[in-house]
Every structure is written in C-alpha cells, then in structure tokens.
C-alpha cells in the first residue's frame, strides 16, 4: 500500500531542500559580504549557526503557543515544499494547485506571528504589525501576477504549467508575463524579507521584530524553517516563470539566479518605512500587475 518510492523521494528532497536552503542563506550572506568588500563567512555558516542554536543548553518559553508557533511554521514550510514540483521529483505536486501552494507558503508567517505575539514583547508586536501590513500591501500585486500567469496558461496545476512551459517556452518570454514577472520579483523581495522590504525584522530598529524573544531551539526551528522556505520560494519562482526544471542541477541554477537578483537588489536599497512600502506596492507594482492581467484576459 505504502508507496516506498514516494517516501524515499520525500525524505531525500526534504534533506536536500534543507541543506540547499541553508546554503542559499550562506550565499546570501557571502554575496552581501563580497559586495561590501568583505571576506564574508563560509558558505555553510547558517548550518553552524543553526547547530549552535539547537545545542543551547537552556530554553525558555512564554507558554504553549510560543512553543507551537515555530513548530507550526516549520511544519507548514515542509508541507508547502512537498507540493512544489522539484525538478523531476513530483512528490505531491500532481495535486498541487497554484492557489494552494501560494497559501501554504503564507502559513509559516502565521506560525511565526502566533509565536511572536504570545511572547508579549512590544518589539515582537511591532514586528507582527509590520509583517502583516507588508503582506496586506504586497498581496494585491502578488495576486495580480499570479492571475496573469494562470490566465495565460489556462490552468492552476503547477505540473501542467511546467509542462506547458517545456513545450511552448518559458513564461518570461511572453511579454505580458514578463511584466508579471517584474511584479512578482518586487513582491519576492518582500516575501524573502530582504531590503527594501525587510521592515519585519529590521534589526537596527526593533531588535529582529518577531524573533526578539526567540532563542535556542526555537530559533533553530525558525532558521531551518527559513531555509526550507527560501528553497521553496525560489523553486516556486523558477517553476512559475523560468520553465521549471528537468533535473536538480538545472533547478539549482535557476534558483541561484533568482536568488542573486534578490541579493543584488537588497544590497543597494535602504529600507522603506511601512506606510511607504504600502503606498509603493499599491502604486507601481499594482499598475504593472493590472497591465499584465489585462494583457492576458
């Protein structure tokens, strides 16, 4: 009854995604360091950080939801990952629907928010407020970009979107979808929590925002979650706009390309304030998004 091949694939992909996610985080730090003319940490530094956090001998808790939040966040990230077609591994993606995956990718946010709120720290609360407002602001252009994509390909199924792109060329080669890709890329910056939309954690203002009360194993969970999320989101981008991939190497190249754009943008822009971010998102990306959806109707 149990499909052992699927089980093995799931385990393999989970390990691979976690590892590569950490490496992506490392690339992010390394690239930032190189842009700032520093040597930068070794590329596997996030793994060390996470191990260290997990190895803390002490752990504090503000209550049940405080513990549940990071667990929920990481669980949801894993769930989201399983629905994305990763190269030739289909996992659960024969059932994957664009809307379902887009929602699953948002749930971790709720988990982090839940934990952060229950810590009762004002900085966390501010972080939660900023996170949600960023989400409110980015959701409209994000939605419009996805709608343009669905309208063009005429299907919600990720596997079919990939298959169509394999035969008819990548999404970004279609002019309307190129516009949608620009919108998506701007939103992507906010999804990854990078400048100019790193309003949520804003280390210099509100002490890491939602993460301020987290330490030890909770923080380790959140780091792992971030790694998986990073892998899932870059893969999502590659699947939607860059034609998916037929093997892991091809996917990796596309993911890293996406990641580097995000890093380059992040390293030259300062941070928006939250109301500026909202106004920005509701201006240019939304206008571009509307153009994209009207072109694909």
């Amino acid at each position, binding site marked *: 009854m149990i499909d052992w091949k699927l089980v093995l694939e799931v385990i393999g992909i989970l390990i691979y995604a976690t590892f590569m996610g950490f490496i992506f985080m490392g690339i992010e730090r390394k690239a930032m360091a190189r842009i700032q003319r520093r040597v*930068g*940490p070794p590329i596997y530094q996030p793994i*060390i*950080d996470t*191990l260290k956090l997990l190895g803390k*001998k002490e752990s504090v808790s503000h209550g049940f939801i405080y513990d549940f939040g990071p667990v929920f966040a990481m669980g949801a990230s894993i769930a989201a990952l399983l629905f994305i077609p990763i190269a030739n591994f289909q996992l659960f993606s024969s059932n994957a629907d664009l809307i379902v995956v887009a929602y699953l990718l948002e749930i971790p946010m709720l988990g982090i928010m839940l934990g952060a709120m229950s810590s009762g720290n004002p900085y966390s609360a501010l972080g939660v407020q900023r996170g949600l407002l960023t989400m409110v602001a980015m959701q409209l252009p994000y939605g419009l970009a996805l709608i343009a994509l669905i309208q063009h390909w005429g299907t919600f199924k990720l596997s079919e979107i990939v298959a169509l792109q394999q035969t008819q060329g990548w999404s970004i080669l279609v002019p309307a979808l190129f516009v949608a890709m620009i919108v998506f890329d701007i939103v992507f910056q906010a999804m990854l929590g990078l400048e100019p939309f790193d309003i949520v954690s804003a280390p210099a203002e509100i*002490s890491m925002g939602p993460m301020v*009360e987290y*330490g030890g194993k909770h923080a380790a969970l959140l780091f792992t979650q971030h790694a998986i999320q990073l892998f899932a989101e870059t893969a999502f981008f590659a699947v939607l706009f860059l034609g998916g991939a037929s093997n892991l190497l091809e996917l990796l190249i596309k993911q890293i390309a996406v990641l580097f754009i995000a890093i380059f943008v992040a390293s030259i822009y300062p941070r928006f304030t939250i109301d500026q971010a909202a106004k920005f998102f509701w201006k240019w990306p939304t206008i571009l998004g509307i153009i994209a959806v009207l072109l694909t109707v």
Partner: protein
Amino acid sequence: MSEMKEMRNENDGVISYELQEFKLFEPLFKWARKKSLWIVAFCTGCGGIEMPPLATARYDFERFGIMPNPAPRMGDLFLITGYVTPKTLKRIIITYEMMQDPKYILAHGSCPINGGVYWDSYNVVKQLDKYIPIDVAIAGCMPRAEAVMDGIMEIMRKIEDGTADGWKRYRENYEYYRKNQDELFGEGWREKDARRWLAWI
C-alpha cells in the same frame, strides 16, 4: 510585597533550571559554538567605536561566523566595551541573564578590569568580575581592533578546551554574585529601577 517575591523567583529561575546534556552530538555542538559567536550588540563606553572596523571590510569578523545580533536570547557573546557605570551594570546583568547558556563575556579595556582612568570615580564599577563572570578580558585603553580580534580568538580557544565556563561559574556561585550586586544596588533593585521609570511612561 508579593510582587517583589515574584520578581525574585523569576530571577532565581535563571539558575534553578536543569541544563540539557547532549550526549551524542555534544562535540558537534561544541564546534558549532566556537564557529558561530553571535554578539549581543550592547555598546557601553568608548569601546563601541572599535566595533565598526571589526565588522566592516578591514577586519571583517563575519569570516569567523561572528555576527552582531540585537536580540539577547539568541546571543552567545556579550561584549562589554568599556567602563561600566552602576546604571549600565543593571542593564548588563538583566541582559546577561536573558541570554541562554552557554554564553560568554568579553570585557574590553582596562576599565572593566580595575576601573582604568576612572579608578577613583564615584560612579564607575571598578571590578566587573565581581558582578558577572568574565571569560576573557583585554587590557588596553582602548584596545585596538586587532586586540579585540585576539580576544575573540582566545574565547574560541577557550570554548574549544572547555575553559570558557563563565556561565557555569555564574550558576555555581550565584550567591556570591547576587550578594555583590545587592551590595551595590540595594535589595530589590530590579523592582525599584523598574518603578523609577513608570512615572515617565
């Protein structure tokens, strides 16, 4: 009064909990602790100015996995960068107790060691080690970035051979540290200090 008691209990929780012992992966974690020291960004005194060259292109401590981190619960390394007044010391103690074991303290310059140029000041703590356990102290006024780097290397070495045990000492000799703190600030200083600021809010 009951609240006062509650405050103390909460504080006692810092030492009365049971530490987790990892058996299988302890060597791995030990290595990771050495390679990933996150600094609690808490700049006191004049030493804070030595941090920017350390963090930026010239010395770049990030290549050793060191990263400034504003949240103390995730931090490992507490840099005391210069002289400490009683008012600052209160914050240092509170932040230190918030950090999670294992945690390390690096004291910069002469002031935390013996008061330095402020040795006869009415308002500077002369020997920081009486109030919180220091793992490595760097002499000098001010120690240059190279010296700080050297201090950090020393901490790494001590973590490796297990002699960076300030957090253990704090737990074992808590009565001693507590007595010194109370002597300086008076009993129930947390409560009193918190109340001082209530009027301003």
